[in-house]
């Protein structure tokens, strides 16, 4: 992945680039539309959602989808559409924060590893090897079980951290490989000769040139993080009832009533699948668009 070439061919910061991206990558554009729709739903949930997400209505328990409740209701009479809209907020907040923290820390680690090379690279990469040997869900489970819960503004910071930590070694490995080729560039040698500090060279000269793989990783890991959050919530280690979260909606009473009220698992399951699919489509298309090798 040649970053210098990629950043010359398409600048994602220009508005016209988005139109060019949509023309070149229609599937990615479809993914982007779904992501934007989710984002809008999350931001304007109070205005869009027809009901309150946590309010029990015993008069509407286990109601099948209807005009009144398009996605039906759960065992507490709570509107499933409303909970899915609010659940988007949970999924995107935790998904984006986890992916951002994981990819940023992992990216910096990867660049530092590539820049310093030698023993530092050896030590960092063996540590990364150890971390990579744990399946992502197992590592997240351990972290969330050890850390418990610490909430800030309604966000479980430890859950974010639990999802971010397994992302760090994975993103670090990918970014390192891109950073290794950047390190060999003459301008890095020039910066060294100019007496710039390692931190200055890493952040000002190397990091901007690995932005493309970083962005691709960021979008790909948002999907992973959403899936992880849903899995942890399903296992009772993520978001707690009565907060709306897609994974949580699949757990608890849903497993008890899925035969009588299949809509209780159908719609949250679709929401998870659709969001992960959308982020994966967008991430793949972004990679294809940014990397000229995939245009051949």
């Amino acid at each position, binding site marked *: 992945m040649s970053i210098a070439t990629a950043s010359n061919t398409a600048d994602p910061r220009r508005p016209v680039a988005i139109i060019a991206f949509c023309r070149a990558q229609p599937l990615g554009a479809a993914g982007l539309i779904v992501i934007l729709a989710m984002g809008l739903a999350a931001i304007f949930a109070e205005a869009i959602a027809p009901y309150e997400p946590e309010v*029990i209505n*015993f008069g509407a*328990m*286990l109601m099948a989808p209807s005009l009144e409740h398009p996605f039906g209701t759960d065992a*507490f009479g709570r509107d499933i559409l409303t909970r899915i809209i609010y659940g988007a907020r949970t999924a995107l907040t935790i998904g984006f924060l986890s992916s951002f923290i994981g990819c940023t820390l992992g990216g910096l680690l990867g660049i530092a590893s590539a820049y310093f090379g030698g023993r530092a690279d050896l030590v960092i990469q063996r540590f990364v090897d150890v971390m990579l040997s744990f399946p992502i869900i197992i590592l997240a489970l351990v972290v969330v079980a050890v850390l418990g819960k610490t909430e800030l503004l309604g966000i479980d910071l430890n859950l974010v951290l639990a999802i971010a930590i397994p992302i760090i070694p994975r993103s670090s490995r990918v970014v390192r490989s891109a950073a290794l080729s950047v390190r060999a560039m003459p301008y890095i040698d020039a910066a060294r000769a100019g007496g710039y500090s390692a931190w200055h060279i890493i952040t000002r000269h190397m990091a901007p040139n690995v932005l493309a793989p970083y962005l691709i990783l960021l979008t790909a890991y948002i999907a992973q993080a959403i899936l992880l959050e849903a899995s942890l919530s399903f296992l009772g280690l993520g978001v707690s009832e*009565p*907060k709306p979260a897609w994974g949580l909606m699949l757990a608890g*009473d849903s*497993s*008890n009533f899925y035969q009588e009220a299949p809509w209780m698992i159908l719609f949250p399951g679709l929401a998870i699948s659709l969001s992960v699919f959308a982020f994966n489509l967008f991430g793949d298309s972004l990679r294809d668009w940014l990397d000229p090798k995939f245009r051949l």
Partner: protein
Amino acid sequence: MHNISRRTAIALPTLALASPALAQQRPDELPRRGGVLTFAVGAEPPTYDLHQTGTFAVMHRVAPHYSTLLTYEPGNYPNIVGDLAESWTVSPDQKTFTFKLRPNVRFHDGTLMTSEDVRVSYERLRAPPAGVSSNRLPAFRQIDLITATDPLTIVITMKEVDASIMDTFASPWNSIFSAARLAQDPTFPVRNVMGTGPFRFVEHAAGSHWVGARFDDYFRERQPYLDGFRAITMTPSSMVNALSGRQIQAEFRGFTPNERDRIVRALGTEARVEESSWMLHMIVSFNTERPPFNDPRVRRALSLAIDRWGGSASLSRISQLGAVGGMVRPGSVWSASPEEMQQWPGYGRDMAANRAEARRLLREAGQENLTFTLLNRNHQPYVTSGIFVIDQLRQIGVRAEHQQVELAAWYAAQGSGGFDVMIDSFTQFSDDPTNVLVKYVSFDKAEVATARATDRELDRLFDAQARETDRDTRKRLVRQFETRAMEQSYAVPLLWWQRIVVMNQRVRGWSMAPTHMIYQDLRDVWLAPERS
């Protein structure tokens, strides 16, 4: 045996509920020997020591390995009969109990059980040595002396009359351990299992299974009928599938109405369903050591916000939660009538008025925007209770954060007072008010009183009812206790559970009761042949 007629009369409603169960076993059907009973248990045991715990996760695995002095007669709850005791007499002042033990009862290591084993086990419950705790201290507080007068005679002398003492002697928690083993290590039962029960311990694989095998020297002739049992640790949803798929034969705690229907649909005529009310209720416990829950106005306001009658009608359709009740099991001989209950704060049917009063109390206490963490177990129907309570509190402007934890963490917080408000529960093996009201007395009198309050008036009423042998007078004292406790609201009942046991019809000889803590020694249980 005393008071059989009174106890039988009390038992009639339960017997009526259990009658389908009795009909399952035809009178001419003789128990068959052999087979291994496989059943599910929904939680891991935090200890093996029955003296130090109160969870079914221990009882359902460990009970088959131990005996008690007396026991509840199978199929005839709450009649009490002898277990290790062959016979007994009571002095006219009801303060001295003399038990004659069965001869030739052996522990699983082959040693003979004597009155010394009973004495040492009871002393451990009454005055636990350093490093050992006793969950049964309140039940043993009136016992003055425990004397082993000869190898087969034990004499128990009371400080004062205790109307519930026969239930204490029959309690499934008061298992008899080997005095010799306890002399070597007072904590021996915490990680070892060695009793005189119908099954010897084989193995426990944490998170997986617990295995017991028939003890051939068990003191009841020809029993147990089973070759052994295997208790498998499972989540509730796995239990439904395992029972439906005939991979397990029973689960003895209980299912939700929906789970019952699913299993019955899958098993058809192979399903055996037994239903009863349940001596188990959910409680909202306030930590009275933490402000603002040291303010009775705040506690009372939060209790007033809960629509118990509405919750009962709806939650009973989706969970094991059922009847509205006070501190003793609704429908039992000691229970308040619905009319009496409606006089208590939080039990009135006019919820608009209740919530207006709750808001007024919170305003008066300066807690209009109260927020706190509601500690709860991550298990059903605790989660359902938590969701319900949070919704009810929201309606008076109170915001509760739901913190769901594993059983061990829940117990730890309960014991250390590390919570603001918690969804608590309490279960007992008998309806006797002394056994159940202990949950609501002062904390320095009973560790199970999670609210950590001190209320000497409640303690006085508790002691008075415990001494009272006249049932009507005792009932009046129980009502006074409940009224006082509801007004102070240190801990308030939420809803009582309904017990729905579903098993494969092959399982015979097991007795249904309004408690899941008794009849779990499996000595009468046998397996009918599989239908071809």
